[in-house]
């Protein structure tokens, strides 16, 4: 069986700075994968690279199809969907419209038809996504009127409305309080259990460790560990990456 996402030797350079050095990462069908690492380790760069916003070396394949040379919107059409740490909603559109932008792929002809007829028919996918994240009540609200946590959820809803093959979430829990973060975790887990493959980046180790199937750890653009949550949690390199060079002395037995 082919992996949903297969990234091999992904490298990114910014000028002379190496942001990612040959990262290998795979996401299997209905897996929830965590990607963690200290600030500046290259996690967001990795998502930018696979979603086509940053040029990268190496090979990125979605369902075995090589994505090389495809623009971001083409990758999105192929089923690679993502969110941003800074949410990046369309602030000029209501929540429902935010989802509608992503959900439809109109041809010129359909645009013309829509122009002549009444406004667009409701789409089942939007209802489903709203329901999945309990956002039905907010569909006619402008994003600016929502709390940070609610905006994050809308970002996730907009990313899943296309029923993507792979959903990449960049720090969905940043800015949420502990309770909200836990609730988000439960929802992501439920989504994965329904068969959605996901790549989750977050600094909230509690969230990542408690919901992910497997975890990859980056530091200075390199993969330093990967495996099941318990394995990663106990890995000395991971602990020292987080607590600093001298951590070994503290975290020793």
């Amino acid at each position, binding site marked *: 069986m082919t992996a949903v996402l297969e990234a091999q030797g992904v490298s990114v350079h910014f000028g002379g700075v190496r942001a990612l050095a040959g990262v290998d990462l795979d996401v299997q069908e209905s897996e929830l994968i965590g990607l963690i690492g200290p600030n500046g380790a290259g996690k967001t760069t990795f998502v930018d690279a696979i*979603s086509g*916003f940053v040029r990268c070396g190496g090979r990125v394949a979605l369902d075995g199809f090589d994505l090389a040379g495809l*623009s*971001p*919107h083409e990758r*999105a*059409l192929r089923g690679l*969907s*993502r969110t*941003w740490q800074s949410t*990046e*909603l*369309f*602030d*000029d*559109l*209501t929540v429902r*419209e*935010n989802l*509608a*932008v*992503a959900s*439809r*792929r*109109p041809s010129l002809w*359909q*645009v013309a038809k*829509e*122009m002549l007829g009444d*406004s*667009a028919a409701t789409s089942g996918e939007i209802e489903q996504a709203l329901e999945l994240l*309990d956002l039905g*009540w*907010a569909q*006619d*609200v*402008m994003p*600016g*009127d929502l*709390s940070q*946590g*609610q905006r994050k*959820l809308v970002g996730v809803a*907009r990313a899943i409305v*296309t029923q993507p093959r792979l959903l990449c979430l960049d720090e969905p829990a940043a800015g*949420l309080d502990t*309770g*909200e973060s836990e*609730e*988000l975790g439960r929802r992501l887990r439920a989504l994965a259990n329904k068969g959605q493959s996901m790549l989750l980046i977050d600094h909230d180790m509690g969230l990542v460790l408690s919901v992910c199937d497997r975890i990859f750890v980056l530091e200075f653009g390199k993969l330093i560990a990967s495996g099941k949550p318990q394995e990663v949690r106990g890995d000395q390199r991971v602990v020292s990456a987080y607590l600093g060079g001298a951590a070994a002395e503290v975290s020793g037995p």
Partner: protein
Amino acid sequence: MQQVLLFVLLGLGSGALIAGIALAVVLTYRGSGIINLATGAIAMLSGYAYWSLKTGEYGGVHFATAPALLLTLVITLVIGVLIEFVAFRPLRTASPLAKLVSSLGVLLVAQASMLLAFGTDQKPQPTILPQGTVKVFGNTVPEDRFILAGIVIGIAIVLAVLYRWTRFGLATRAASENELNAQIAGLSANRLSLGNTLLASVVAGGVGVLAASVTQLDTVSLPLQVVPALAAALLARLTSFGIACAAGLGIGILNSLIDYFSTKSWFPTDQGVPLPGTKELIAFLIIVLAMFLRGAALPGRGELVEQRLPEVPRPHNLMTPAVAFSLVCAVALVVLPFDFRQALVNTLIGTVMALSLVVITGFVGQISVVQLSLAGASGFVVSHMAVDAGIGFPLAPICGSIMAITLGLLTAVSALRVRGVSLAVVTLGATVAIVNFGFINSTWGGGNTGSPVPEPHLFGLDLGPRSAFRGLDGSLPSPVFGWVALAVTVLLCLFVAAIRRGNLGERMLAVRSNERAAAAAAVNVRNVKLLAFGISSFIAGVAGSLYAYNFGSVSADRFDAVTALALIAFAYAGGITLVSGAVFAGLISTEGLIPHALDKWFGINGNWFLLFGGVILLFTLIQHPEGIAGAFYKRLHRSRRPGGRGERGSLFTAKTPAPAAER
């Protein structure tokens, strides 16, 4: 060869003028991040100030040169302070569009007030520089050209030194690189902005006074020098004084050489006269070249938060207002006296023109100055098809619209990489080029007199303004044409509202909000922009055909750059994101209902209205950035919006709708 050299040297004069204004543009941009379209207008204001002091035209006192210069300096500084505090400072954190429009407001106010004070006649500016000549390689050249060029080069050196060595210069460089970091370092952004605005005013004003020997003083020439100056400033990436100065001088020399070449037999001619508009075309090409060479993005100011454009509410219940509007206008077109009938037709056409801006600027966030020129191109096609080929309604307007769409898409191709304020500059250059190269040309444009447009006929029926059916007072124009214009306007209003309601509108707004996120949501950003330019140009083309039939002729002056800028001002003040805003814009547009009523009842003529228009625009920008229609809309719909900013509901449950809060 000797001749060529002569013209090169002569070109130093106008080159110095362009270079001086370019230096002021760069100064303002580095000081406050504003591309000041009014830089040329500041030169004009100082020029008029010096002229009236020196000739005693105002106040009756003849000043000697030195005190007149000193007073002019004081006046220029006062103008600088006014501009800073009225137009720039209140908009420090506003959207780039708002900043640009505010400098446009300054331009309109300056121009209108000078028109009111001094009329349209050109004034011979008394010269300050010595009037002798020098011999250079056998050519006799006025020495003031060298002095003027020397002064501007001197200014550029002084500015470069100032920016290199003084604390003020260092601070400005720091703030223009990253304004927030500069504030963290304890630098006052406001004080730096004021300092640079004053410096820019003095530089522009000084050039305006000294340029007497090169150009006459009027209300158009100097303000429009900002276009070649922008070309020079863009080549300097709005950063380097040296390059801006050199490029300005270069453009001046190039223009002078064109003057020389146009006397040659090989130079292309148009009905006996040398091809007009080549200089403007070159300025435009330099702007486009600069954008490609220097990169499309202008240097930013770090992470300072920029505000969004006004919001674009989804229109509800279109039919009732559309039917009511149609009925009222249809009746009014019969019962109103002839002059008000004409003003109403002008308002309808102005509305269509503003609709074109609603699509491109309001929905997609692209600032295009060129839309009015596209209308003009369409109008000239209608005229020439009728006059040269005998093809009339409805084929000619269709061809006109196709012409507008073609030109619009050509602009759009350059807009794919250029956005925001850069696009405004490119399209401003395009406007000036199209008007001078296209419309003034007597073969494919209208020459200086304009080109006639016959009445539109369909199935033997005269649909034009001279149709047999007259209003109640039996005078021209005929209500029939008004009805045609009304039908077109209402249809296009519904069309634009339908765009906003449909998925295309959603995708346009997605592109406007965030191109990156739009691409991630599988929106093809390039196609959406092209489509928006196409639709907007089509609407402009329709407006152009209506213009043509309305006036029975098309001429270049109806579509010039200042009118195009005023159109954006009206559209912004009306509410650039709303269909109803376009209707407001039509009401206040040139020769529309409101200016006509003010003129007729209160004797407030067009120039006064432009002056008020500029002032109101500045006021609107600061008080109601969403425009007049937007302010109305907010007042009407405030209670409808569920919840409000501020309270923080639980993450997964609905907030109880709060009572409408003042926002």
